[in-house]
């Protein structure tokens, strides 16, 4: 028996379990690529118009920080810029989710042991997971390329966009494969891999805004961006990505052979024989379970805030060109300076991240329920409401903390350049909170109502993100764009706050969470 025996059946099993999610995710990314290109092409009737818009975008540091420089000052360049980042990130998330789910999660829940005792080789589970993830990512890239070609844009550029998606997805496949070998828990593995993804993003953003573009080569998202579809079309960057994947897989394989099934690389050390006094209430338990992840996020958000804040000076500089400044004001709905627009965009982006944190912390309820840990807690004097609220509190409080951290860090580092104060940025960060809370409440609602489908929460977040990114471009009706709570946040800093909107959102968040709680109180605990 070789160590790869059984890869085929495992792959089939994985496909049978996940085909729908994989197909839906791939199609969502392809749709993103196609519709942003199609909508952009139809937006500009002349080349000159497109070039003017492209020039404006390439001069906007919020665009640069989020998406990188425009690959070309053409309609195609404008049409592809968002897909470079969002499609690359989407493919990276997909690859990560698949690898993690079919290696570490399986092992943690003991299912792999059943498999490993059969006719399955030691390398087979990892191999199957990697093949699934790589195939998903490569299909995404290929379909993105084909969908753009159908719009009669440059075939080389279309293919290059496919390469962008593939580069990000393939390297993340390798990163996740290594991370899955390092820790014993799904969450731990996810934490490591996603932290590296975040680091790659920040490095890329710094490289693109700080004038040291060479820094971007340290980040695999920077590699993806440098493929520059419809610009330089550097298709060859696929080669280093494949090499990186191979190296990472070799590392993962070495680690795999150095550890036992079920364990991580780092052996567990003994812990305290008795519980600290704080670990005696549902809230104490929720805090204990979630504090590590929150600390990681908070550190990440502090770094993000400092980086964003340090770009304040360069953001202000562009506004000196009066024509650009005028267009920027228009773009932001007529409020504030270029600096304001820059920070508004960045903070809203950070708010989406905080919403993702809130959702994942709220879904902890489900990952406590499914394996049966909730059962032993709820068989004590702990009521369902108290248990639910303790995790909800950590989720909502944690997400709030993250926005406070990023606002303060950005404010402190921006204050040095004197263009904007801590108070203004903290206020702007706070103004996004209602949308963050609504997102978290969606997770609570789904947990109560559809426990086995509660991962749909992520589709909701993806929907909010896409509505924000593409809603205006696709000229979706206002009410459709308004489905996303992030569409009702006012325009701080610089512009007015939307107090009524905030109140409505808070009421909605409360209603969703309460409904979720009531539904949970009425249903069976399910595994």
């Amino acid at each position, binding site marked *: 028996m070789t160590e790869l025996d059984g890869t085929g059946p495992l792959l089939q099993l994985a496909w049978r379990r996940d085909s729908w999610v994989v197909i839906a995710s791939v199609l969502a990314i392809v749709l993103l690529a196609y519709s942003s290109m199609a909508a952009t092409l139809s937006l500009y009737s002349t080349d000159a118009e497109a070039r003017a818009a492209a020039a404006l975008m390439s001069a906007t540091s919020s665009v640069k920080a989020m998406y990188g420089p425009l690959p070309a000052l053409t309609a195609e360049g404008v049409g592809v810029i968002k897909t470079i980042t969002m499609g690359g990130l989407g493919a990276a998330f997909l690859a990560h989710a698949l690898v993690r789910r079919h290696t570490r999660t399986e092992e*943690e829940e003991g299912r792999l042991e059943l498999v490993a005792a059969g006719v399955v080789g030691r390398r087979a589970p990892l191999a199957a997971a990697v093949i699934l993830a790589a195939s998903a990512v490569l299909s995404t890239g290929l379909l993105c390329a084909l969908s753009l070609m159908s719009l009669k844009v440059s075939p080389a550029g279309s293919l290059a966009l496919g390469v962008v998606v593939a580069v990000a997805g393939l390297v993340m496949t390798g990163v996740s494969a290594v991370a899955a070998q390092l820790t*014993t*828990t799904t969450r731990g593995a996810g934490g490591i891999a996603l932290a590296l993804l975040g680091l790659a993003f920040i490095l890329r953003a710094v490289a693109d805004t700080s004038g040291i573009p060479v820094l971007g080569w340290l980040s695999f998202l920077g590699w993806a961006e440098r493929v520059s579809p419809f610009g330089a079309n550097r298709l060859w960057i696929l080669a280093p990505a494949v090499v990186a994947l191979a190296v990472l897989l070799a590392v993962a394989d070495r680690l795999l052979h150095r550890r036992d099934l*079920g364990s991580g690389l780092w052996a*567990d050390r*003994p*812990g*305290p*024989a*008795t*519980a600290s006094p704080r*670990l*005696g*209430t*549902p809230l104490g*338990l929720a805090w*204990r*379970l979630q504090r590590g992840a929150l600390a990681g996020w908070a550190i990440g958000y502090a770094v993000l805030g400092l980086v964003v804040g340090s770009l304040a000076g360069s953001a202000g500089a562009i506004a000196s060109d009066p024509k650009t400044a005028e267009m920027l004001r228009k773009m932001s709905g007529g409020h504030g300076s270029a600096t304001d627009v820059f920070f508004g965009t960045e903070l809203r982006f950070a708010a989406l991240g905080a919403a993702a944190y809130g959702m994942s912390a709220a879904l902890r309820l489900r990952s406590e329920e499914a*394996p*049966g*840990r909730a*059962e*032993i*807690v*709820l*068989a*004590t*004097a*702990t*009521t*369902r409401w108290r248990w639910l609220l303790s995790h909800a509190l950590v989720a909502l409080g944690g997400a709030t903390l993250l926005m406070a951290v990023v606002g303060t860090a950005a404010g402190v580092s921006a204050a040095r350049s004197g263009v904007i104060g801590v108070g203004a940025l903290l206020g702007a960060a706070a103004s996004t909170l209602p949308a963050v809370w609504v997102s978290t409440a969606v997770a609570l609602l789904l947990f109560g109502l559809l426990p086995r489908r509660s991962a749909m929460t992520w589709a909701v977040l993806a929907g909010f993100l896409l509505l924000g990114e593409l809603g205006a471009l696709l000229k979706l009706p206002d009410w459709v764009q308004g489905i996303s709570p992030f569409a009702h946040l006012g325009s701080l800093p610089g512009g007015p706050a939307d107090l009524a909107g905030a109140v409505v959102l808070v009421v909605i968040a409360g209603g969703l969470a309460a409904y979720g709680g009531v539904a949970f109180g*009425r*249903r*069976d*605990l399910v595994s």
Partner: protein
Amino acid sequence: MLRNMALAITATGLRKTFGTTTALDGLDLTVEEGEVHGFLGPNGSGKSTTIRILLGLLRKDGGEVTLLGRDPWTDAPDVHCRLAYVPGDVVLWPNLTGGEVIDLLGRLRGGLDATKRAKLLERFDLDPTKKGRSYSKGNRQKVALVAALASDVPLLLLDEPTSGLDPLMEKVFQDCLREVRAEGRTVLLSSHILSEVEAVAERVSIVRKGVVVDTGSLADLRSLTRSTVVATLGTPLDLSATRAWPGVHAADLDPTNAQRVTLWIDTDHVGEVLRSLGEHGIRALTCQPPSLEELFLSQYKDDLAEVSP
């Protein structure tokens, strides 16, 4: 009976369906205060479902249920601070130690006895400093057992609590249960280990396909079933006449030896049958009361006739 007949658990006509499967189909169960009650039945018969309804973790679809005189669904917290639960498959938090989990569950229940805890850790030979993920199956089970046994609650709901324990620990568990019984606490013990039930339980209920098919003391249940008598006789027996004797369910001749006969008879009628057999000159005889194993096998099977033809 002299025993105080207060009831710790009552369930009448309990019904529960999951989609198209009917897990409980009118289940009746009563557990008296102060008894250890064995809860037996084949896989998938509804034992865990019953216990989860008793805990308010599942919602019943029909019937009545009270636990310590209260409704476990509406009064869950009140009831829960007076009971402890051990599931058959304990899942722990990967990064909490066993000691932390024991303390946590105890505190959530309203306190636990520190000296008892220390003694139990020693008796079960459990290392409380290990992280949840590094415990073996049996040791995870021990964590939940210590947490439950270290509290002073009047009711224990144990769902296959010893699955995965080695024989030594199984014995420690049985000793603990005897002490619990001596303290006058009530235990509902679901188990597939018949010797364990036989050792500690006073009464048992046997559930099959979501219905309790038999309930009573072990002695009562024994008398309900059949003994096997194998006799070698001086003069041959007329089988059809024998089958008409009171208490005889079936009779068979040994195909190789016409004088050897096997009878399946009601345990109550053993004396009469032996007297009748005596008239044929008994040369050799064995009489076996039903073993507990047979007793349960006969109850677990779909058709009693399959076991004793």
